């Protein structure tokens, strides 16, 4: 297991348990008892540490290298998945995965950011940062979904759209903007789940929806804590302060009534148990999808428009 900085006490306990297990093979006197005592302590410790994580610590859990990514969920949630590649005009962007599949028996379209696990895959997936062709592939698949009356399930997990020379040359801004406009009008349900990092415009570009679900330790923000810190504090070391101020967590978004459900993660985070978090996500998505479908198309569009129209806090006098 890969432990984060603030999990060090848990890591130390787990190391001790591991050590005892080896000793156990030799003697096995009362060692099992000691192991289960330590395991209980480890889980209590995890519980207590995870019950009061700061927004910055949650940002780190959201980026945990073993956290399940879109393809991990696709494998566990859906059957008959076929990936659809390419934007039909320039390239296939591996940082954004699209496809058709079944959620139990229900046919659906899936669109999600994809990060890589090892160095080679990280490069292939560009660390989950799409270029314009990724957003244009998504646009094409959004329209496909509408044409065949398929609900769209999107999965957000990106540090943001890629800040590169080619991305600017090919119109990163327009690609994102076009998706926002198209999603606001799309005549099929859109259910978005933030599974890891929700990084700014690059996240929103697949995240205009009828329902927004967030995993307990996922984040969603207009700018990364580091980016905000380097602009407003002139120092990236203030990321923790910036995360506090930005309120990047699911709880804070929920207080602002921007989320429809927070999906509880297994003790210690989603990365500790991919299967169990997948099961919870599946249940939630199925429920919300049913609710939105029950509205009927016109009411659904109408309520999506109202959601968008009412975004914002201001005074009127």
């Amino acid at each position, binding site marked *: 297991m890969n432990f984060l900085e603030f999990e060090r006490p848990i890591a130390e306990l787990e190391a001790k348990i591991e050590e005892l297990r080896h000793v156990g093979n030799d003697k096995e006197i009362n060692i099992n008892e000691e192991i289960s005592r330590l395991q209980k302590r480890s889980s209590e410790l995890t519980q207590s540490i995870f019950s009061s994580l700061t927004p910055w610590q949650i940002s780190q859990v959201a980026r945990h290298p073993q956290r399940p990514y879109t393809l991990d969920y696709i494998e566990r949630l859906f059957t008959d998945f076929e990936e659809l590649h390419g934007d039909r005009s320039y390239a296939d962007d591996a940082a954004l995965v699209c496809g058709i599949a079944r959620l139990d028996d229900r046919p659906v379209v899936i669109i999600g950011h994809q990060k890589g696990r090892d160095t080679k895959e990280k490069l292939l997936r560009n660390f989950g940062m799409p270029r314009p062709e990724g957003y244009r592939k998504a646009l094409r698949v959004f329209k496909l979904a509408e044409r065949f009356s398929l609900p769209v399930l999107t999965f957000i997990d990106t540090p943001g759209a890629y800040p590169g020379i080619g991305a600017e040359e090919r119109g990163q*801004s327009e690609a994102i903007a076009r998706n926002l406009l198209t999603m606001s009008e799309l005549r099929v349900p859109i259910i978005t789940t933030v599974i890891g990092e929700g990084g700014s415009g690059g996240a929103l570009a697949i995240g205009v929806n009828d329902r927004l679900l967030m995993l307990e330790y996922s984040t969603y923000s207009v700018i990364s804590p580091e980016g905000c810190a380097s602009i*407003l504090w002139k120092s990236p070391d203030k990321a923790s302060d910036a995360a506090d*101020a930005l*309120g990047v967590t699911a709880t804070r978004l929920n207080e602002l009534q921007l989320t429809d459900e927070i999906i509880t993660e297994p003790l210690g985070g989603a990365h500790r148990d991919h299967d169990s978090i997948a099961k919870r996500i599946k249940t939630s998505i199925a429920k919300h999808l049913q609710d939105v479908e029950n509205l009927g198309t016109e009411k659904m569009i109408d309520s999506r428009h109202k959601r968008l129209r009412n975004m*914002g806090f201001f005074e009127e006098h």
Partner: protein
Amino acid sequence: MSWIKKLLPSRIKTNGTSRRSVPEGLWTKCVTCNAVLYRAELERNLEVCPKCSQHMRINARARLDAFLDAEPRSEIGANVHPVDRLRFRDQKKYRDRLAQSQRTTGEDDALVAMAGQLKGVALTAVAFEFNFMGGSMGSVVGERFVRAAEYSVDQEIPLVCFSASGGARMQEAIISLMQMAKTSAAIANLNRRGIPFISVLTDPTMGGVSASLASLGDVIIAEPNALIGFAGPRVIEQTVRETLPEGFQRSEFLLEHGAIDMIMDRREMRDRIASMLAIMGHRRLAG
């Protein structure tokens, strides 16, 4: 004065006092060609350098004032005011930043919206105030933009937007991000009703504003040599670790890459936009 300044050791220089002996703001210098310009003449020329045609930044109200007919005009969304819902605080409080921008600009947020006429034809026009927290888009900007768009839909008249913005307003955190979706949805409504939307990109148009309403014009016009893009040049340079190509993210670069329809001199905008709107809106004029 300048030669004597060079001779003085820096610790006995007094900052700014020499400038104050001349009436402030009577003369100004072009940032590009260094020509010394008479302030009043520059204003008459819509902040475009008469020597080199450099388009300098112009404030929102002056922009709309120059663009619209003198009469009739009415402001949209002036009764909408910013609040600090999140009690955001970095090195400064958001409330203090708001108050400071309000003092220096005389505006209470970064977008001015007006209903008026262009050469006798009714339209709605909005302009970003870059001096107000970098023209950043928060709730008030989003709300005023949407109200202007709704007014356009209601009256069946075109919408013209002059953007000048660093992007989303960080101090409104996730709420500012959502303004991108909110404003884009308002443009979808204009599209559906066949109401023309002209987006004029001025220096600078970046980030969340560029990646939403500004890039969704039926016609997209840029002023000469404006910085326009999604990610800031410094961020890109740090990411790719290469020197950026000459003219990167400037209007001319965008035209070459197919991102905008045209580059237009600010002084020609009244004539040319009026003419384009007449062509695009021919159905209504004929009816």
